[in-house]
């Protein structure tokens, strides 16, 4: 059995592209534009779900500061503009390869908002720091002097988004794709169908 891939599986896209490349390049251009529209709608939908405010209680996250969080501060516009689309290959085990349309989040704060609490819903497990000793270097444990900060951070985001995420789930990008999956499937089928019709019409002439 092939591994289960994320996203909407469509059929006939590769074959249609191959045929259009050979017989009707204009239709191929039209089809690509229509696919771009499908992606654009998904992208805009995802961007619209980005909150305009920093979650309450995390006001410092939205303030310009230096240090470790200097590049991760929450700027709503930055998070929105970090959402992009691209078409690439997706490869899994075996010989199964696929041409895939992706939606991506390249902003660090956006990625944090998307995934916070997926692995550790209560923040990193805390390893109490012994006085006089150095901090531990393991990333699996927190040596913070404020051990409840992580859980607080996650809770505040969950409160704002009304979403608790686990495993591969997400709050903005992933949720948008999951919500729109039936629409995407229909739209893509329609795009391919229209392209095929155009091709048949041209070949029938």
């Amino acid at each position, binding site marked *: 059995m092939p591994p289960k891939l994320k*996203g909407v599986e*469509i059929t006939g896209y590769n074959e249609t592209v191959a045929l259009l490349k050979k017989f009707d390049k204009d239709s191929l251009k039209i089809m690509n534009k229509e696919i771009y529209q499908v992606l654009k709608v998904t992208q805009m939908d995802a961007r619209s779900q980005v909150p305009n405010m920093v979650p309450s209680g995390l006001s410092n996250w939205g303030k310009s500061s230096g240090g470790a969080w200097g590049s991760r501060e929450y700027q709503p516009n930055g998070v929105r503009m970090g959402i992009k689309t691209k078409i690439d290959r997706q490869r899994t085990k075996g010989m199964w*390869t696929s041409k895939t349309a992706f*939606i991506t989040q390249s902003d660090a704060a956006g990625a944090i908002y998307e995934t916070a609490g997926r692995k550790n819903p209560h923040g990193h497990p805390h390893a109490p720091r012994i006085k006089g000793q150095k901090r531990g270097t393991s990333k699996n444990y927190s040596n913070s002097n404020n051990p409840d900060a992580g859980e607080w951070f996650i809770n505040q985001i969950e409160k704002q988004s009304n979403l608790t995420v686990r495993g591969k789930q997400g709050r903005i990008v992933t949720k948008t794709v999951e919500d729109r999956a039936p629409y995407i499937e229909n739209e893509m089928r329609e795009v391919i169908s229209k392209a095929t019709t155009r091709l048949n019409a041209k070949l029938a002439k």
Partner: protein
Amino acid sequence: MIKVPIFFQLNKLGLIGAQKELKKLTNQTKAFGITSKLSIGAASVALTAYAKKSVAAAIADQKAQATLAQTLKNVGKSAATPMLTRYIDTLQRATGVSEELLRPAFEKLVRATGDVTESQRLLALTLDISASTGKTTEQVSASLAKAYLGQTQALGRLGIGLSKAELKTSNFEQITAKLTKLFEGQAKVAANTYAGQMAILGVSAQEASERIGIELINSLISLGGQNGVENLANQVERTATAVSEVIAGLTTVISTIKKIPILGNIGGNTSIVGATIDAIRGLGRKSIAKRDAKTDANAFDRGLNNRALDLATKIVAKKKEAAKIDKAAAANTKLQKMFDLDAIQIAAALKGKISDLDRASLLAMQALKTEDKNDDIKALEDLEQAKISADAKDRARKIKALQDTIAFNKAALDDWEANFAKMSSNATKMLGLSAAAYSVGAPNSTYQTGLQQAQTDLFKGTFPNMDYVNFDLGSLGAANAQMEAGIAAQQAANITVNVNPSGSGFIGNQDDFLRTVQMALQIGGRNGYSYSGIATG
């Protein structure tokens, strides 16, 4: 970065490949006629398809034959074409590997090696490897061809049990020797399996298909008449119409004939129609046999084979000429051997008085000149033995020389010791006679007595006799007396002494001396010196 797929389409390469293979297998099964329950209509369709396939197979076969023949021609081995056609035919029937695969494989090998025999050996190896590993014949033959030309990477990629180091360090002969050892007999074993037997049946079916295709093409060409296939299409249509009309007419005729009691059963159970058909089949058989006897297997390679035959005849003639030249060369070589100067010199040297080592060396050289390898081995052993003996002798000689040197030195030492003892003895004697020796020249001595004593006692037996010197000792004594008298006379006579005291100038005469003394006295007086005693200071 977070990356979430929106939509995708799987490119099922593996599945598509498997489906293709499955489809191929299904087609092969159909070719064997295993497909069941063919209706008459389906059978006719299948027959048409079979005919079409037969023609395609015949065309492909002819093309493959022509390609191989051209390759053989290019490498200068066109004479081997008929033989190779038979070889490949036999091989495909024995192994179940179709000639469609064997011909390209052989072509690759012969293009690389340029040698038919070597290519046949490599093709057999290819089949063994292919049967064992499951790699295609084409893959294996291409890898072997590359390896023959020095590129062993492809061979390594086949995964046939040869490491990179082995491939790098071994030459092609060593590689093929190892592969032969590893895969020997695999093709035969594979041919004996059920799959192999099925493949052999498949080859037979393919051959039958090709044969039928060839006949179909020949028949169509014949139908084309003088203009060949140019007007074939029109003729086929006309023929079809005519045949349908004839069949319709024949049906009517046969039904009419059958109604006549006498004509309906001539010759017992044989009807006129059956006899007519048998007669037509007989004519067909004769026609085919005549054409086969006159020409080669099919119309396509007829010309090619004729040309190959002509070329083979020419090559045979050339080979005969070459054989004559070889014979002459062989005679020349034999004659040269008869007058082999080296051999003569060796034989002459062996007759002389030579050392064992030299004899063994010469015998080894003589053995090298013969074809027989056994005498080489014996000569080598003898030579080694002679070298060992010669070394032993050399060592013994050196030891003896050393011993001789030691003995000589010892003798010299003994001699020196004897001389030393003698010298010591003489020295003792010399010391004992010293008083006499010292008496020479002493007051009241006699010179002659002393010298004679020295001659007789001191160096008696040591120094040589010096009588021949003939000292005149009498004259010597007289001279001595004269000298002493002269001295006495001088002592008696006045002596003038010139003095040159420092600070007083040169005293050359008596007046100077007196003046000097006077001056000394004056100085002494002035200074109060004493004039008695000897002045000191």
